[in-house]
C-alpha cells in the first residue's frame, strides 16, 4: 500500500507466562476447578498463619514434555533453575510496584526472596519422557522458612532459563522467566480445604511450529500431550 510508513506489528509489552492465569493459579487448583466446576474465586486473608500448608520437603519436577526432534540424537535440552520462597508481604509489595497489564518482571523486583534450590542441567538424550524429566526430591522447605513467615498466601517463585535445540526443526529455542505458585494446593476431594503443596512443576514443550510452550500445571507423568 502506497504511503505506508511502517509495515509490521510491534508489541513492546512482553506477555510473560508468569502472569498468565495458567501460571498464576496453582497447578492442582486449576485441575480441580476444571474437574469440579468450582468457581475458582479465592479470598486472600492477609498474613494468615498456616504452617500446616508448608511441606517439610518439596519435589521439583522439570519436564520437556515433547519436541519434534526428540528421537534425533543431536537434539538437546539445557535448563538453569532456581526455586525461591517469597514472603507474603514482600510478594504483594512487589506486585503492587509492577505496572498493570502485560509485564516482564525480573528477579530483582522481588527482594526478600529466599533461595531453596538452584542448578543447571544439560541433557543430550531426549528419546523418552523419562529421559526428558528432571526430578529433585528432598528440597528442604518448611524449616528454611522462618516461622512467622509461614503464611498461606506467601509464594514459591521459579526462575528458569531454558535452551532447547531441536535437530528436526534445526532451531534453538531460548526463554527465561519467572513462575509463581502458592505453598498450598486444594484438597483433591474438597476444594475448600488447603493442603501442603509437595511438588513444583516446570513444563516445557516444543510445538511442531517451533514455539516453546511453558507451564507449571501438575501433569500426568506418562503423557506427552500438553
Amino acid at each position, binding site marked *: *500500500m*502506497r*504511503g*505506508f*510508513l*511502517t*509495515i*509490521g*506489528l*510491534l*508489541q*513492546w*509489552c512482553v*506477555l510473560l507466562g508468569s502472569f498468565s492465569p495458567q501460571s498464576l493459579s496453582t497447578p492442582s487448583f486449576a485441575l480441580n476447578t476444571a474437574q469440579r466446576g468450582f468457581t475458582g474465586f479465592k479470598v486472600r486473608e492477609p498474613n494468615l498463619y498456616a504452617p500446616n500448608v508448608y511441606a517439610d520437603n518439596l519435589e521439583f519436577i522439570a519436564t520437556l514434555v515433547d519436541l519434534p526432534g526428540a528421537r534425533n540424537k543431536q537434539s538437546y535440552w*539445557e535448563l*538453569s533453575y*532456581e526455586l525461591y520462597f517469597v514472603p507474603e508481604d514482600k510478594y504483594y509489595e512487589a506486585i503492587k*510496584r*509492577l*505496572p*498493570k*497489564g*502485560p*509485564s*516482564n*518482571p*525480573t*528477579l*530483582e*523486583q522481588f527482594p526478600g526472596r529466599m533461595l531453596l534450590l*538452584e542448578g*543447571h542441567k544439560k541433557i543430550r538424550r531426549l528419546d523418552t519422557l523419562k529421559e526428558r524429566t528432571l526430578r529433585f526430591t528432598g528440597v528442604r522447605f518448611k524449616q528454611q522458612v522462618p516461622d512467622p513467615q509461614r503464611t498461606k498466601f506467601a509464594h514459591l517463585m521459579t*526462575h528458569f*532459563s*531454558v*535452551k532447547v*535445540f531441536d535437530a528436526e*526443526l*534445526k*532451531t*534453538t*529455542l*531460548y*526463554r*527465561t522467566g519467572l513462575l509463581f505458585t502458592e505453598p498450598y494446593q486444594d484438597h483433591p476431594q474438597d476444594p475448600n480445604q488447603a493442603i501442603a503443596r509437595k511438588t513444583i512443576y516446570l513444563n516445557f514443550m516444543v*510445538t511442531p*511450529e*517451533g*514455539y*516453546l510452550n511453558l507451564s507449571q500445571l501438575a501433569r500426568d507423568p506418562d503423557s506427552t500431550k500438553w
Partner: protein
Amino acid sequence: MRLVANTFKIAIALVCAGHFSFHAQAQETPSSQQQLLKRVNDLLNSTADEATKWDDKVVAARTQAQIADLIWDTNPDNAKNYLKAAWSATAKVDEPKRERSTFINPSLRNAVRREVLLVARRRAPELAATWLEEMVEESKSSEKKERGTFDDRTARSAVVLQMANELVAENPKAAADLLIESLRDGISFNFQNTLIRIQQKDLALAEKVFRAALARLRTAGMSDPNELLTLDSYLFSPGRVFGANTADNRNSVQMALGGARPDVPLGRQNPALAREFLAIASDLLLAAPLPTGGNVQVAARSLVSAIEMLFQEVNEHLPEKAALLKARAQQLDSEARFATTPPPPRPDMPDIRRGESQESFAERRVDLLEEAAAKGRDVLTRDIGYATAAVGTTVERYQRGLDLTGKIDDKTLREGVRSWLLYRAVLHFIAAGNLDEAHRLNFKNEDAGQRAVCFVVGAQKLIENKDTDRAGEWLREAGAIVRRSDANESLARIALGIVSTYGRFDTQAALDWLLYAVKLMRKTPPTSLTEDKAPSFKRISGITPVSDFTIRTTGFSLQSAVAVFAPDQFEQVLYVLNDITPQEARGVAILTLCRKFLKTKPKAVAGKIRRGVGSCQPSVAARRRNSTLDEAFLILPKL
C-alpha cells in the same frame, strides 16, 4: 555424473525451446495459437481439478479461485465449480496456533476468503452475498473470542474491508460500496485506512462514505468508544489511530501508526462535517450508560479516555458540548478509578524524557538491558540477557550489538544473534543505497543463507541502478553459496530469488537456475514457496523481535520466478516446471506461467479465452499489501 545429467536436461530444455519458439515465431498461425491457447486452458482445468486433492488448503483455495477467474469467459460452468470448491477449501484452512493479542489478531482464513470473495464479487455476485452471510452465521455459532483493540468488528467486516482495500486503486466506487457494507457490523479499525485511500482519489466519494458512518452512529449508536476514535482519527489525525485506554494509568496510550496520510485531513478541509461528527460523538459519549453487571471500571475508563481524546476538537467546534463532556468525565472518574500514583519504572524500559531522540532512548534501553544481563546468576541467564540487549540496538548501532554478542558464552546464541544483527544491517544498507558498505559487512556474516539473500537483494538494487555487470557478480556469489549448501526450505527460495533477479537481464541464466531451484524445492512446504519476501531464517527463537525486517524484500516466491519468463518460452519453462514436487507448488507454478502467457499474448487471440483477466489476479505486490493489511499499522502499547 550429476553435472552431465543436468547439462543433458538443460540441453533437452533448449531443444524444446528452439522447437517451440520456432513454432511460436516462424509458424505462429491463428490455428497454432488457438492450439496453444487450448493447451493453456486444459492445463488450467487439470490444475484446478487436482487442487481439490491438495493437502495445503490455503494454496488450493487460492489456485482454484484464480483459475476460475481466468477461465470464466470460456468455460463458466467449470469456473463456477472451481470457485465453489475454493470456498469450500477455505473452511478447512487452519489458523496458525498463537496466543490471542490484545491489540490485533489477523486471520489467515479470512485472508484466503477475501481472495475467493473478490473473484466471486466480480464473477458471481450472488455467491459472494451468500458466502458473506455464511460468515455471519459462522461467527454466531463459533466460540466468542475477545477482540483486540485494533481488530475489525467481525470476520465479515474484516474480509469486506480487505476486499475494499484491494479494490480501491482500480475502482474506488466499488471500494466505497464495500466500506458502507462493512458498517452493518459497526465501524471497524480498518475502515479509516481504506477511506483515506478513497479520499485521495475522490473526496466527494469519501465524504459520502463518512456520512454513511455517521448515519450508522445515529441509528445504531456506538458499541464502544473505539468506533468514535476510528472516525476521529480519520478526520483529524489520519495515519495515527488511538484506542480507548482501559489501563490503570490515566496517561496510557494505545496507538496504531501507519497507512496513507492525506496532505490535509478531511476534518480541516470540511469543518462542517467535522462539527457534525463531533456533535454526534459528544451526544453518544454523554448518553452512553455504564454496564450494570459487567466490568464498570473498564467501561468507565474507556469512556473517559475517549472524551479526553476528543475534547480539544469538541471544545474548538462546540464549546457548549465540551462543558458537558468535561462534567461527564468528572462524573465517570469515580467509576474509572485511575491510579493516583505515577506508574513505577519498568526494569527493561527507561523513563521517557521530553524531547529525547529515538536513538538516545534506544541506547538507554540497551544500557538497562545490559545492566540487567550482568546480574544473571548463571551463564545461560546472562547469555539470554546479553542477547536480548544486543537485538535491542537500533540498526544504525549494529556495532554496539555486535560488541554485546562478545559477552555471550553460548556459541549458538552468540553466532545466531551476530548473524541476525548483520543480516538486518546489510539489508538496511542495501535499501539505503550504500552497496559498498553492505558488501563489506555481508562478508562478516557467517550464515551462508543470509549472506546469499543479501547478495540477491543487492543485485536487485544494482539492476535498478542499471549496473547489470555488478549485479551479475553478486548473483554469482549468491549462486556459489547455494550450490555448496545442503538443500533446505530457505535455499529453495533463495534459488527462486536468483531466478527472478537473473530474469531481468539474463534469461538463459534464469532458466538454468529455475532447473536448479526445482530440485531444491522438493521438501519445501508449498505455502513457503508462495511467500515473496526473503526468508527470515529461524536459527534461534525466543530472542529476536517479532517484527520482520525482511518484509520489504521481494522476488523470492515461485510466482516471481516463473513470471520473469517471456510467453515464447512457454513450453521450455513448462518442461522444467513439470518436475516440481510437491504437487501444490507445481500447480502454483503452472498457473503463474499460464497467466503470464494469457496476459502477454496478442489480445485478439487471448481475448477469446480470457476476457477481463487483467483485473483478476492481484500482483505479488498487491497480495503482500493485503496480506499485511492488518499488520500495516505499527501498534504502540500503553505507555
